[in-house]
């Protein structure tokens, strides 16, 4: 799987969707302070669009958003630029980017501790209909990588973890799966397994 336009989404706990307005000043500050370790460019405010990307932090390599596009609020990282490595390696690098930002968000005073992420499921999309059309063949080609990755993020005991992969197969949509883990993963730290990988 050569696709590099991966998108990973963490979901907020039900009923814990934060107000969007504070993210505007948070993201502007992140740009100013070089908070994340890649080039951040701008903030795009789409809070007027229901079930949309909310407030976006635009980067050169990818965008972050406080997103409800699939109807459920969460925090997304979408990678945009070509990146070396295998699909599995890209999954890990994008997860690291997402987690670094999520961890930073948890520390933001303006959010008053309201950010509460459900650590038992996440979504992965491949925004590339050329290399990853939304069909069974694509699922078959990435399923083992996704399974291994889901185990890795849950830590040392992950091999005992049950993982459920739901594939939304609308052929017009991007390839996307929702992954549920039996045990929660941490959003404040990389799992030791992932740390070593």
């Amino acid at each position, binding site marked *: 799987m050569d696709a590099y*336009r991966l998108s990973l989404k963490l979901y907020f706990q039900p009923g814990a969707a934060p107000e969007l307005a504070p993210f*505007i*000043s948070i993201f*502007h*500050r992140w*740009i*100013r302070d070089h908070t994340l370790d890649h*080039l951040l*460019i*701008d*903030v*795009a*405010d*789409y*809070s*007027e*669009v*229901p*079930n*949309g*990307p909310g407030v*976006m932090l*635009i980067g*050169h390599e990818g*965008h972050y*958003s406080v997103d409800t*596009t*699939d109807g459920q609020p969460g925090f997304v990282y979408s990678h*945009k*630029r070509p990146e070396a490595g295998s699909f599995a390696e890209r999954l890990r690098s994008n997860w690291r980017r997402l987690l670094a930002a999520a961890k930073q968000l948890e520390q933001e005073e303006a959010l008053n501790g309201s950010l509460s992420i459900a650590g038992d499921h996440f979504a992965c999309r491949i*925004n*590339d*209909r*050329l*290399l990853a*059309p*939304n*069909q*069974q*063949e694509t*699922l078959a080609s990435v*399923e083992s990588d996704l*399974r291994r990755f889901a185990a890795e993020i849950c830590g040392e005991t*992950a*091999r*005992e*973890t*049950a*993982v*459920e*992969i*739901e*594939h*939304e*197969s*609308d*052929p*017009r*949509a*991007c390839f996307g799966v929702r992954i549920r883990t039996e045990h929660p993963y941490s959003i404040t730290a990389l799992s030791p397994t992932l740390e070593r990988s």
Partner: protein
Amino acid sequence: MTVISRTHTSSETDVSTAAAPAILDTWKARLRNRIPPSIEREIELYETQMELKRRGKLDDKVFAESRLRRGAYGQRYDNGQRQNGISAQTLDYPSGDLTKGPNTLWDAPGMHRIKIPFGEVTAPQMEVLAELAEEIADGICHVTTRQDFQLHFVHIDDTPDLMRRLAAVGITTREACGNVVRNITGCPLAGVCHDESFDVTPYAKALTTFLLGHPDAQDFGRKFKISFSGCDDQPCGLGRMHDIGLIAKQQTVDGTVQNGFKVFVGGGLGAVPHKAKVFTDFLPVDELLPTTQAICRVFARLGEKRNRARARIKFLVAKLGIEEFQRLVQDERSQLPEDPRWIGFLPEALPEAASLDFGTSNSDASGPFTEAFETWRLKQDGAVNEAAPIPNRPHPDAFDAWAANNVRQQRQNGYFTVLLHLPLGDLTAPQMRRLARLSREYAGGVARTTVEQNMMLRWISGGDLIELYQELSEVQLARPGAGTIVDVTSCPGTDTCKLGISSSRGLASELSRQLAERSYELDEAVQNLRIKVSGCFNSCGQHHVADIGFYGVSRKAGNHRVPHFQVVLGGQWSENAGSYGLPVVAVPSKNVPTALTRLTDFYIRERERGESFQAFVQRVGKQEIKTRLLDLTRIPGFDEDRSYYSDWGDAREYTLADLGVGECAGEVVSLADFGLAESESTAFEAQIALDAGRIDDAVRGAYTAMVQAARAITRIELPDLTENPDEVVRQFKTRFHDTQRFHDPFAGAKFANYLFRAHDANGDSVAPDAAHRRIEEAQLFIEATHACNTRLSQI
């Protein structure tokens, strides 16, 4: 580990571009058979120019205009500098100093404008727009005030495939920007409206096709905008604010009804708004294309090229006077060689438009349905369900409020239009996909965009309205209040535009939110007002023609800047933008909502019976209104209230330092420069062919490059020069070689002789080393042409 895989299958099984079973490596390969060869060639040429630009072999201005003419615009901060609220911050892009235009960095995200002629967009097109928004932009499809779509935060490397994917569904981005004929807009109600003289759709379509890439429309000093309207008194076409405004009209001659257009010319908003002049009261439909062509030729020939601030056709019309302009156009028209396309579209266009005329006061059809209509209905790409009244049965509570403003009965009994109120013109990719599906199920597989940044479904049977409402509600597309005061129009402003002064989207969003909260208590007279916001004086938000318009300005307070908006009153939206408003007073951005409330309250309290807002403003006077808003102009000190010193939706302290040079005006690049850029691309492709061992292609390419360069320089004197190589070489020889004007100061006729030899030898087979030499000669000939062009421009 236990792994369970489940697949949720959607009911939608049609194959889109995304669902093709075989995986091919590139979009170019995947779509090879779905793109017309001429368009694929255009895209390949663009890719070659991108490669030349990367290698530093193409001039910044030439490449900028070239990408602009393909819809690829710059965006704010694309010079690599961004104010962070405290100081300027450098954005260190990986490609470093590589540029895609003057002061525009290669890696900086850009905006891509996608032309949608008269706003008509099909279901497959909507799906591809959604795909592109998700894959290469920010997930949002944005409808503009000229019925285009825009995608934002697009990397230039992604633009060739964007063009291919659009081309495969019949969309070109060619001439979406730059100094060319921009998207031709049209009334979204065309064909279904009660008030129109006739359906303008086929004429808008024909003129779009005719002018796209037309040689007479390539050498303008500025952009050129055309609109079509079906009637004189409604606003849908905004004819009076366009370079050419065409308003459908019928006249009876010897008992026969003729279709034609009232033609306006020289209108425009911008910093110096001009109301259009009447060019003619009646232009028969068979004269539409040639007369427009003649207007383009006069504008290209006499329009200002150096001073871009005065280069729109409105300045030329004002300078010449309408009578002289008419005379020049008529003279030009009389000299045009006949072109079969002028009337070629009419036999097909007229019956199709007429088929929609049934069961109406405009029709002489005896029954509610005609055979012609039935034929039309059944051949649509999606379902047009049989006409029916709205069923009298229980429906959701909010249906009536939605239907009150968003649903309109068509001219054809039993059919309705449904307006989708898009906040700030934005919709998400999933919403767009759902809309595509709904258009297939209910609206013939088609929707239209509107100049108020909404979308419209047409041909909805009354019997389907409740179901459609429910389906739209599921994806938040059943927002009520379309076309009312809560439906605020806005240009992108400081969000993404390099020219933006204040945050028009931020203000529009705030106004819309506050108005929606109290919409149920608003007086009906206020409900129907239009608010339009621009981020600067250029009026992309069309603030001049709103009941209440705002445009961004800035004011200094101590050592700080404060975002403001001018309050513009007196504009008229109806009668095709019948009059333009004027600024009354500048108010700090954060006080604009209060100013709006005061204005509307004042109107409700003091208006006379039936008095329009425009008449009210006229009667009470702008001085009185200004007096009532004057206290709102006071700016609190920086330490007293810092909120005034940042803009809506932007946490940074406000500054003007992010203002850049706009690309709306395009780059003024001569036909010769364009032709030379094309010849360089061809020469480069010849090199690629040689490297790949395609000797014949290489030789042919080298020769073609020389002919293109010769044509480029010759067109300075002979703009209508054909592409026939014999004629190009003959004219070049007569005008440049024989006069020794092409002669190199040291090498004399050496370089011209390369062309003549290649021309004589064209078609001969040559050895690889000779092919290599031919390419070198082509390159030298192109360089000599550049030098000649420079010498000529210095004379």
